[in-house]
C-alpha cells in the first residue's frame, strides 16, 4: 500500500510536535522516521495508526483519505516500543487477538498463527504467558501479532530499543528479512542512525517536528542537505570557512580559514561563508607534505583513541577548530602522540557543501 502525507501538523498545546510534514511512501517500502527524541517521529507514526488526529493535513492510504477513519478500522499493524503484550493472554491468544476481532474462522486462525509463529521462530512457546518470555521473544510475539492480521502497513515504534546490543543487531536483520519476504509497506521509527541505515529503503530525518531530508541511506550519508542531517547520520566534521575564490573551469572552490586554504569541488557559491561537511574517514593521514599535492594540512594532535581497526584522532583543524580523523589499519604506521603534528589530506571531491 502507498502512503501519502500532505502538510501534516499536530500540536500539543503550544508545541508543534509535527510541523507541516509531507511524505510519500511507496508500495512495499521499508521507510524509517529517524531523529532525536522529541523530534515528532513517534507522534507521526501514531498519527498514521490513528491514535492522533492531525490538526492540519491529509493522510492517504492508496489515495483514500483516512483522516477520519478510527484507529481500529485502519488495518495497520503496530509494534509498540514496550511490545504492549496482553499480560492475561498466552502467546497464542495474544497473536489470535486481532484475528478473533475479525471473526476469522477457528480453523483458519490456527493455520495462520502456525505460519506466523514459524516465521518469527516462536515454535513451542504458544502456551506461555508473556511474563515468562525473554525480551527478544516478547519482541517476536509483538511482531507476529501485528503481522498475522495481514495489515496494509506495518508500523514499528522503536521496536528494538529494549533489547541488548547484540540482540538488536540480529533482530533488525530478521525484521528486514521478514519485511522483504512479505513485501509489506513498513514505517519504522528509531533514533539509532545505524539501525536506520541497516534496515531502510528510505529514511526521513526529522528535527523539531520538521522534515530535514528524505532519501536512501546512501544519499543522506554522502549528500546530506543540512548540517543537522550531516551530524545526525554518522559523524561529521563541520568546517565553516570563507569563500576565497572560484574556478569555473575545474569547478573548484577555494575556501579559507585564517592562513589555511583548501580546494573543494562544487558549484559556484555565493560570496561569504561556506559550510562544509567532511566525514572522518574521508580524511587521509599522510606521512608529510608532498610537492604538487593539494589540501595537505598539518595540525597538532589533541587526543587519540585506539579502537583496534582504527585510531581516532582529535586534531586542530583549519582555523583551529578541532576535527576528527580516522586512521584505518593503524598497524601500518607508528601512532602520533598527543601534541605532535599530524599531516593529513582532504581530497577536494569529498567535502559536501551544505546549504544550511
Amino acid at each position, binding site marked *: 500500500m502507498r502512503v501519502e502525507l500532505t502538510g501534516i501538523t499536530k500540536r500539543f498545546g503550544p508545541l508543534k510536535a509535527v510541523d507541516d510534514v509531507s511524505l510519500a511512501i511507496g508500495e512495499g517500502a521499508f521507510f524509517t522516521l529517524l531523529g532525536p527524541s522529541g523530534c515528532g517521529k513517534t507522534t507521526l507514526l501514531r498519527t498514521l495508526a490513528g491514535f492522533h488526529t492531525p490538526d492540519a493535513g491529509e493522510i492517504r492510504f492508496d489515495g483514500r483519505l483516512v483522516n477520519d477513519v478510527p*484507529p*481500529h478500522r485502519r*488495518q495497520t499493524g*503496530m509494534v509498540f516500543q514496550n511490545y504492549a503484550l*496482553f*499480560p492475561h493472554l498466552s502467546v497464542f491468544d495474544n497473536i489470535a*487477538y486481532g484475528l478473533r476481532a475479525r471473526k476469522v474462522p477457528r480453523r483458519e486462525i490456527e493455520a495462520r498463527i502456525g505460519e506466523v509463529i514459524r516465521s518469527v521462530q516462536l515454535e513451542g512457546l504458544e502456551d506461555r504467558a508473556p511474563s515468562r518470555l525473554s525480551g527478544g521473544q516478547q519482541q517476536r510475539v509483538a511482531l507476529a*501479532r*501485528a503481522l498475522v*492480521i495481514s495489515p496494509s502497513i506495518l508500523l514499528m515504534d522503536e521496536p528494538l530499543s529494549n533489547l541488548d546490543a547484540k540482540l538488536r543487531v540480529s533482530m533488525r536483520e530478521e525484521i528486514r528479512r521478514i519485511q522483504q519476504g512479505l513485501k509489506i509497506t513498513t514505517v519504522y521509527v528509531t533514533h539509532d542512525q545505524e539501525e536506520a541505515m541497516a534496515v531502510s529503503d528510505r529514511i526521513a530525518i526529522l528535527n523539531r517536528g520538521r522534515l530535514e531530508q528524505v532519501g536512501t541511506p546512501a544519499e543522506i550519508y554522502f549528500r546530506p542537505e543540512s548540517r543537522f542531517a550531516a551530524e545526525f547520520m554518522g559523524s561529521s566534521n563541520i568546517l565553516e570557512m570563507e569563500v576565497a575564490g572560484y574556478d569555473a573551469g575545474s569547478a573548484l572552490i577555494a575556501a579559507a580559514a585564517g592562513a589555511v586554504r583548501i580546494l573543494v569541488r562544487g558549484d559556484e557559491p555565493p560570496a561569504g561563508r561556506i559550510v562544509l561537511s567532511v566525514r572522518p574517514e574521508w580524511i587521509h593521514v599522510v606521512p608529510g607534505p608532498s610537492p604538487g599535492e593539494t589540501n595537505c594540512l598539518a595540525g597538532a594532535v589533541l587526543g587519540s583513541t585506539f579502537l583496534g581497526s582504527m585510531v581516532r584522532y582529535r586534531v586542530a583543524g583549519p582555523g583551529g577548530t578541532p576535527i576528527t580523523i580516522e586512521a584505518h589499519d593503524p598497524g601500518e604506521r607508528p601512532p602520533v602522540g598527543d601534541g605532535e603534528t599530524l599531516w593529513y589530506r582532504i581530497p577536494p571531491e569529498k567535502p559536501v557543501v551544505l546549504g544550511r
Partner: protein
Amino acid sequence: MRRLFTGWNLLLALIFLILFFAVVYPILTIFTASFLHPETGALSLKSYAAFFHYPYYQRCLRNSLFVSTVATLLAVAIGVPFAFFLSRYHVPGKNLIKTLGTLPLILPTFIGAEAWLILLGRNGLFAKLFHQFGLEIPTVYGWKGIVLVFTLQFFPFVFLMVSAAINAIDRSLEEAATNLGAGRLRVFFTVTLPVVTPAILSGALVVFYLCIENFGVPVLIGEDFRVLSVQAYNEFISEMGGNPAMAGALSMVLLVVTLALTLLQKYWVERKSYAMTSLNPLEVKRLGPLATFLIWLFCAGIVFVALFPFAVVMVSSVTKTQGPVMYFGQWSLDNFIRAFTIAPRPIVNSFFLATTATLIGIVFGIAVSYLLVRRRGAVSYLLDILVMLPLAIAGTVQGIALAATYNKGFVVLTGTWMILVLAYFIRKAPYSIKTTSALLQQIDPSVEEASINLGVPPIRSFIRVVIPVMLPGIVAGAIIMWVTTLAELSSTIVLYYGPWATMTVEVFQRIGSGDFGPASAYATILILSVLIPLFILNRVSGKDLASSL
C-alpha cells in the same frame, strides 16, 4: 475519537455530581448549620462560642487528642520492634505470626471493646475470677480501656508500614555503612533507622487518625470519659431535631483535626519517604536460643493478647448467658437460634446493604480509576482529592452530615436504606479505587492501543483487555469494601432507622442493654463474615489482605 471524549466527559461530570451530593454538599450543610443560631436560625457564632466557653466541650477535644496520642505512642512502641524482629531475625512460626498479626486491623474495633467488657467489665470474667481470691482488679472503663483496645487493634498499621520499609532496604546500604567503618549500632542509628523513620511516622499518623475518628470503642467503654466523636453523636440524637448547630460545630472541629492529619500525611510524610528498589533484601539473622525465644515471646505474646478478645467473643456466643452474666463452660446455641429466628432482619440487612454498596462501589471504582489513570486532565487532581476525601472524614461526621442534609427538601433520604448505601459506598469506594488504579497504573496505555490497533473498538478493547488485567484489583477492592462495610458502625449508628438496623447496630445496642449473649452471636457472624472472604482472597491470590487498606 471526538465522540468518545464527550462520553468520558459525561462520565466525569456524573462522577463529580455524585461526589458533590454525597460528600461536598453534606459537609457544607453542617458547616453552614454550625454557624446558625440553634433557636433563631440567624447567622451566629453561638455554637463555637459554646465550644470555647464550656470546659465540657473542650475536654472532649482534649480527651480525643489524649487517648489518640497515648495509643499512637504505644502502637509505635509495639509495632516497630514487632516489624524489626520479624523482618530481620529468625523467629519460629514467623509466617503465622505475620498473618495473625495483621488480623486485628480488619476486625471491628467495637467487637474488641465488647470482648474486653466481657473480660474486664464490672461483671467481667477476670473480675469474678480474682474476686474469688479476694482480689480487686481494675476495670476496663475509661481512657485506659480505650487506649488498650486502640493499641492492640491499630499497632498492625505501624508493623505493616515499617516492615514494608525494612524490606525495601537493599543489603548494600548497610554493607556500605559497615565498609565505611561503622559498627553495628552505628549502622542501625545512622542508616537503618533514619531510612525507616518516614514509615514509622506514616504509620503513627494513620493510627492517630483511626483513634480520633473511632466511635465504637469510646462509646462502649469510655463511660464518663467523653471524646469528640461520641459527643457529636450525642448532640445530634439526644434532643431529636435538637441541636444540629452544636453537632455541626463539634463535627467541624473533628473534621479539621482529621483533615489536618490527612494533609500532613499526604504532603509531609509521603514526600519524606525514600523510593528504593531492593535487589538483595537484608539478611535474616539467626540469634542465640535465649534471644530467639525472647523475641518469639514478644511477637507471639502481642498477637495472642490482640486476638484473644475475639476468641472470647466467639466462645461467649456459644455460651449460656443471662443478660450480662455468662456461664462459661455451659455451652448453648441459644444465642444463634435467637438471632436467626427471632431477629434475623439485622443479618439480612447487613448483607444486603454491604452487597449493594459494594456493587455500586465496584462500578464507581472502575470508572474513577480509569479517569484518574488514563484520562488525566485539568480536573484529575480535584477528582483525586474529592474521591479520597471520605477517608479523611470520621464516620460519625459523615453520618451526621448526610442525615442533616437529606432529612428535608427535594430529596428525603434520611430514614431510608438508600442513605446507608450512599454513605457506605462513598466511604468505601476509595479502597476499590486504590487497588484498581494501582493495577491500572502498571498496565501501559499501549496495551489498550494495541487492542484498538488490532481492530477492536475502544469500549470493547477496554472490556476485553483492561478489565481482565484489573480484575485482581477489582476483586480485592470489592472484598475490602464488603468486609469494612459489614463492620461499619460509626456512620450506621447515625443513619439507620428501626427496620434497617444492621448487625453492627444490634451488637452495639445489645451491649448497651447488657445483653452480651446475643451481642456475641451477631459479633461472631460479623467476625466470620470478615475473616472468611479475606482468607479466600489470601488463598486465591496470595495477596496480603492488609496491604490494600
